[in-house]
């Protein structure tokens, strides 16, 4: 049936389109109860062919946002546009969006082919067989078309679910936690595969995930959400290296960023931030904060350097040291500070509890935040 001979020669989506969310709001109202704002005014401009991740903890509004785009949830206010077409009031079936859910939702008694055909036949789509053959060739899954879901590996099931979302060649693809059912090894493989496919076919894609490593590695840009609000929308590099606020800094990165109280000390040219009781300081490039201001200081374990002796920096005592072979993790304590500071150390180094070490960090990697609002100070 298929006319395409090589997957690479298959038709590219001619129709990758932009997706624009403007002031999107979802408020749940129930009689006799307080209304609950799940999504509080989201604005996202997504370019044609871009892969975007919505990242956040459970309850942040990411899935509600996805469901509103898909048409599975009514919109309280605001607009959703594909290209120039307003779709927020259209029924789900008229939006031209492919959706892949967290559970693959495949019909167990049907073969892969029948699973892919089912939705098309139910809608009496013309040329359904042709469309299924074409997607199967493009995703290189011809050899599994006659198998039942039970006979597939988890990675293959994921592929079938993806094929079903893509079979109608939608301009926009939505994927809800697409990798969460895979074991660690398959997750890495399928993630890279998904990205390569997405690049090749150029679908505008939104992936919802709670896994920060997945979002960083998969997305062209990611929207970090909390409490129904986008906290930061940027490239993985921007989100990781230039967090907009304390929430983003703490949600992204593992081991988690260290956050301690500090006081800004600026004498003319150089600015440092003092931490603890007479324990020293870290450098910072922040210039817009007055001398003596109390701030929250964030520094990632991987950005800290450790030296023995008495270099300039933060004087600390090692409380625990773990050697993980790839690297070490030292948990250190600072006089007058309750939280420990975790430092990632090179594989060849080893430390002992009670050992005195001096912590340093590059000035541009020491982030300061407002102690009340958590906003980044610059």
């Amino acid at each position, binding site marked *: 049936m298929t006319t395409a001979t090589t997957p690479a020669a298959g038709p590219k989506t001619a129709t990758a389109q932009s997706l624009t969310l403007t002031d999107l709001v979802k408020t749940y109202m129930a009689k006799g109860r307080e209304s609950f704002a799940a999504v509080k005014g989201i604005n996202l401009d997504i370019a044609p062919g871009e892969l975007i991740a919505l990242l956040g903890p459970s309850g942040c509004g990411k899935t509600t946002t996805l469901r509103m785009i898909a048409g599975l949830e009514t919109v309280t206010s605001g607009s959703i546009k594909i290209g120039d077409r307003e779709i927020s009031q259209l029924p789900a079936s008229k939006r031209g969006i492919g959706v892949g859910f967290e559970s693959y939702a495949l019909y167990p008694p049907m073969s892969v082919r029948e699973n892919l055909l089912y939705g098309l036949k139910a809608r009496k789509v013309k040329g359904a067989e042709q469309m299924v053959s074409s997607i199967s060739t493009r995703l290189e899954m011809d050899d599994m078309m006659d198998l039942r879901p039970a006979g597939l590996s988890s990675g293959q099931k994921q592929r079938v679910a993806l094929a079903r979302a893509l079979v109608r060649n939608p301009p926009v693809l939505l994927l809800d936690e697409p990798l969460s059912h895979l*074991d*660690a*090894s398959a997750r*890495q493989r399928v993630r*890279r595969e998904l*990205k*390569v496919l997405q690049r090749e076919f150029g679908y505008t894609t939104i992936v919802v995930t709670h896994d920060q*490593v997945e979002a*960083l*590695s*998969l997305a062209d840009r990611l929207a970090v959400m909390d409490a129904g609000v986008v906290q930061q929308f940027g490239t*993985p*590099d921007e989100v*990781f290296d230039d967090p907009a606020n304390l929430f983003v800094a703490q949600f992204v*990165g*593992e*081991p*988690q960023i260290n956050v301690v109280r500090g006081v800004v000390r600026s004498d003319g040219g150089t600015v440092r931030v003092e931490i603890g009781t007479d324990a020293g300081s870290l450098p910072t490039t922040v210039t817009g904060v007055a001398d003596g201001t109390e701030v929250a200081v964030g520094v*990632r374990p*991987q*950005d800290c350097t450790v030296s023995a002796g008495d270099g300039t920096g933060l004087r600390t005592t090692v*409380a*625990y040291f*773990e*050697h*993980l*072979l*790839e690297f070490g*993790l030292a*948990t250190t304590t600072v006089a007058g500070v309750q939280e*420990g500071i*975790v430092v990632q150390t090179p594989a060849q180094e080893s430390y002992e*509890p009670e050992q005195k070490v001096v912590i340093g960090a590059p000035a541009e990697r020491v982030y300061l935040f407002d102690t009340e609002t958590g906003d980044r100070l610059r």
Partner: protein
Amino acid sequence: MATVTLKGLSKSYGKTQAVRDLSVDIEDGEFFVILGPSGAGKTTTLKSVAGLVDVDGGSVTIGGKDVTLVEPYHRNVAMAFESYALYPQKTVSDNLASPLKSGRTGKYTDAQQKERIDQVTTTLGINHLLNRFPRELSNGQRQRVALGRVLVRPADVYLLDEPLSHLDAKLRAAMRAELKQLGAMSKTTTVYVTHDYQEALALGDRIAVLRDGALVQIGTPEDIWRRPADTFVARALGQPEINLLDGEVEDGRIRLGGGAFDVPVPAGVDVRGGDRVRVGLRPCDIHVVGDQAAGSGPRLTGTVVLAERLGRNIELTVDVGGEQVIVLSSGREGVDEGGQVSMTVAEHDIHVFAAGEGDTSRLGADHDTGRTRGGVEEVETAQ
């Protein structure tokens, strides 16, 4: 304070063989980790030591005494379950007191009970929770209480089943660091079950890797990391997973990617020209180098297919002679997608395994597998 010896331990559930002929010697005071994926037989092994399953074959010895047929409460072991197993109708304080009140392992006065509970709750940072019920606790707090109930009573052996699995990443890292201190403090023989390789590397004095109920390798974290006994162990440790490439030996080198590049045969690996092998290279052991850098060690060149951020590191998918190789780079510099990169690998970071499908064993110098260990033991017993 006791040694634990398992000899030829076997246990089946119906047709499923959960543990196969497992022999392990755990030293007095050792922190011993059992690592494996779900279904590997980790928990069954732990329950066999605790006496909570009737084993089909083999023996369990604690402190030199065969306890295979001894009731759990006479073994003087304390176990923490993954599912907490707290009494829902009792407060935290009463839950912690329950092992002290059982009377089977010594009597404690009220004052002694209070002192022991105080000590444990202070160490675990759960002082403020004493009057709460388990339903009023977060998962992390429940897990601490379950751990506290193990530590509150002196036992010969502590048995811990995935005690950190329900904690979030930050708490898990913090508890992991603390737990090692607790272990060192109490110097009690501890058997610790986990599927998390970082936990195993961080905590274990030695690690036993299980697969399908059988021992694959036993050794220090360093042994297991540097000299994985087979591709299963190699793949179980490290994220992203180790690269496994098919190759052929020729003139003291291993040709990979259909001859597009090669690496030297590491010292001590006994292979001959024409032999087919699999080469394991960890993503963190492949280093991206600038063109001018005079690198020692073998050099690979390839095209960057993907450059993805993985936290502080950048994960590169590099096409090297048609093989996809995963590499970790510390920064974005010189690793743009579509661009060329040069990489080096130190000779001692090259792992060579037998050719074949599925999991194949390491080639070369001796490594400490369960089988060789078991064999040595039998010889000793025979004498």
